[in-house]
């Protein structure tokens, strides 16, 4: 229903103050904050589970938790971090908060669907976590739930896991439909597609992936649950089924899922850097085409996860080449960010520090990613800690660093108060050192053959595992300055003013925090969201817009 208009409801019936964050609110800003806080709570749970994993791996023997418990912990850790933290926060939280501003609208295209999409998440998450206590055992087959492993581990936990992921997938699809309709249909009259802030393009690309890929996972998990409950044999080799088909269908979603987690992060960084470097975003057009190229290529690379699954040579060749090609648009974006920073008047605050660390981490994760796309190398390190290291450089070093950067950048917009910079820098230093200490050694461990998802390992690997665990401890400690900062600043932080960064993107052209329908009067028409420059007044906007690749960035 497009007709939902918060102002039409009885004012007395709509909860006010902090209570509205616990209500079925239709305001996209309230829903965005709901996603953010809910996601962060699940991040704390997932982080605690990561702590259990690293504590167990601090010694070669399985002496902290039992082996089965270890398997449950790693399954819950992966599922929570992906489906309840990163996907909901980069898409749901920042997407919902920012996209209506960026398209000049007062809300999303389908506000009620939006609220439904959010309220599917808390029950799904609680269902997932409660399976550990209620069903006897949580799912133990990893976040990939590969059969036949997922058919032989305790059924109740696996079924609860499937139910939970189906709910989360539904939420994600509803969100994707909403973003596509909002970006394509709800733009303010006069605002052209190529004038939108980059985050809109990132969310459009992400939502296309969500709508095309998520339903395939849903169908596959329904088939898996048939195998578990009704004893059909889709994926059960002993009944004539085919496990590789599960892997194909699973990765058809789950490889794009990586882009669903990282494309919005690309968009957010593209918003943060120009503001704090006081320069236009470099290469706007190439950025747009790169996002769309990643969307198209992202749908045809899934089998690079399956090079050891008996894939035929032609398939290996195709997926190696397709995967390597993704490095091209990604590299374009990487150099665009560098060129945006180049020669800028960079304010080295927490948001920029996290953004720059994102670029650093992500290029490292990208390089190992291209290495993993090569069949001979991949076969050597498949299912080792090398893959774990690579993956965390992408989703933690990439997406989570950007979530933190975005928090420092948009916190004044959410609350009207500035986060403390000293605590922010402490948070950054602890996170950056802890993260690299934790995950860089895992590449070395993987190259030497340490398998992933096993509670015990060869004692020869002890030293680097302990280094990794110390890094994890630092990451856990780094959460404290963030938590203190966010909570204390919300009540006692310095008042930010409406536009503390002197930004030009539309969300800053209203009060902070914004009124219910975003603008008191008409929405501003922002055709030049990155028009930062050194010549105030009377300059050639086309020249500094970054839209023309060859003429921009020279000044």
């Amino acid at each position, binding site marked *: 229903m497009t007709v939902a208009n918060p102002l039409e409801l009885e004012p007395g019936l709509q909860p006010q103050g902090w209570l509205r964050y616990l209500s079925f609110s239709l305001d996209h800003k309230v829903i965005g904050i709901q996603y953010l806080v809910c996601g962060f709570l699940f991040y704390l749970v997932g982080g605690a589970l990561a702590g259990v994993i690293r504590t167990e791996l601090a010694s070669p023997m399985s002496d902290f938790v039992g082996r089965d418990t270890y398997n449950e912990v790693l399954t819950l850790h992966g599922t929570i971090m992906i489906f309840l933290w990163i996907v909901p926060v980069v898409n749901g939280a920042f997407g919902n908060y920012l996209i209506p501003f960026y398209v000049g609208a007062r809300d999303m295209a389908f506000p009620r669907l939006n609220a439904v999409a959010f309220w599917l998440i808390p029950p799904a998450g609680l269902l997932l976590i409660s399976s550990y206590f209620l069903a006897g055992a949580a799912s133990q087959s990893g976040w990939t739930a590969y059969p036949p492993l997922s058919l032989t581990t305790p059924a109740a936990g696996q079924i609860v896991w499937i139910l939970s992921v189906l709910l989360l997938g539904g939420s994600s699809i509803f969100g994707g439909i909403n973003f596509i309709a909002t970006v394509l249909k709800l733009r303010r009259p006069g605002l052209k597609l190529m004038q939108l802030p980059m985050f809109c393009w990132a969310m459009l690309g992400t939502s296309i992936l969500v709508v095309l890929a998520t339903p395939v996972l849903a169908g596959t998990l329904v088939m898996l649950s048939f195998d578990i409950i009704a004893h059909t044999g889709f994926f059960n080799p002993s009944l004539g*089924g085919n496990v590789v088909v599960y892997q194909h269908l699973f990765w058809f979603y789950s490889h794009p899922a990586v882009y669903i987690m990282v494309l919005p992060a690309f968009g957010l960084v593209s918003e943060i850097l120009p503001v704090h470097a006081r320069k236009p975003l470099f290469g706007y057009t190439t950025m747009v085409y790169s996002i769309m190229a990643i969307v198209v290529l992202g749908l045809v690379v899934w089998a690079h996860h399956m090079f050891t699954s008996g894939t035929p040579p032609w398939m290996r060749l195709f997926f190696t080449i397709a995967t390597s090609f993704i490095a091209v648009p990604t590299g374009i974006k990487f150099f665009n960010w560098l060129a945006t920073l180049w020669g800028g008047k960079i304010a080295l605050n927490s948001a920029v520090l996290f953004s720059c660390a994102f670029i650093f981490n992500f290029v490292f994760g990208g390089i190992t990613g291209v290495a993993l796309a090569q069949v001979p190398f991949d076969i050597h390190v498949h299912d080792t800690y090398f893959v774990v290291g690579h993956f965390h450089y992408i989703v933690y070093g990439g997406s989570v660093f950007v979530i933190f950067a975005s928090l420092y950048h948009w916190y004044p917009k959410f609350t009207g108060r500035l986060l403390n910079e000293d605590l922010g820098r402490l948070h950054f230093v602890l996170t950056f050192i802890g993260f690299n200490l934790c995950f860089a050694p895992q590449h070395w461990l993987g190259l030497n053959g340490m398998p992933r998802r096993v509670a015990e390992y060869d004692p020869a690997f002890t030293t680097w595992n302990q280094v990794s665990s110390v890094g994890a401890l630092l990451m856990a400690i780094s959460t404290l300055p963030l938590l203190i900062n966010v909570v204390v600043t919300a009540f006692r932080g310095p008042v930010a003013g409406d536009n503390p960064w002197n930004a030009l993107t539309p969300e800053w052209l209203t009060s902070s925090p914004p009124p219910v329908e975003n603008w008191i009067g008409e929405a501003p028409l922002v055709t030049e969201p990155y028009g930062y420059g050194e010549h105030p007044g009377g300059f050639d*906007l086309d020249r500094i817009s970054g839209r023309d690749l060859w003429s921009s960035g020279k000044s």
Partner: protein
Amino acid sequence: MDTSLQPVTTAQPASEEHGHPDFRLFGLATFLVADGMTFAGFFAAYLTFRAVNPLPEGAIYELELLLPTINTVLLLVSSFTFHRAGTACRSGRMQTSRRWLLLSIALGIAFLAGQMVEYFSLPFGLTDNLFASTFYALTGFHGLHVTLGVICILIVWFQARPGGSISQDSHFGLEAAELYWHFVDGIWVILYGILYLL
């Protein structure tokens, strides 16, 4: 920066409700793309199973063609009758529209009945072999869509009564149900092709 901030000239699309343009059909179409991808996943799984997984000795996977062909015709005709219902509604002939809707409902129920007859006369059950499981999963998932569609048309038929919420000027429900029904029909045609003819 003089080009950055300009006052709004509000020119909203024609179809509006409470001052907001109506994107519900666009949203539904996007959802149907997603729904279609679910079917695409099932189709891909079925075709791969068929290509690489040999069935056990004596397994039956040749299906009778008569009943499913009649069913296909029923569904295609129902798409036509629903289209007529939509045309009649848009030109204000609500009574005619309701008659076409009723006919579409009858055809949908006839399809489901045919499906039931086929299920009970088939020589294999859900867990007999891979082909049987995939057959029931595909046709069952589609049958679920038909059932939902019939319920939707029933609701639309009720809402299109004199004084109901669907009229010549306001017929989103009817259009949405029509779009969905055509989608379900299109899926069946593909399903019929790969399951029965291939």
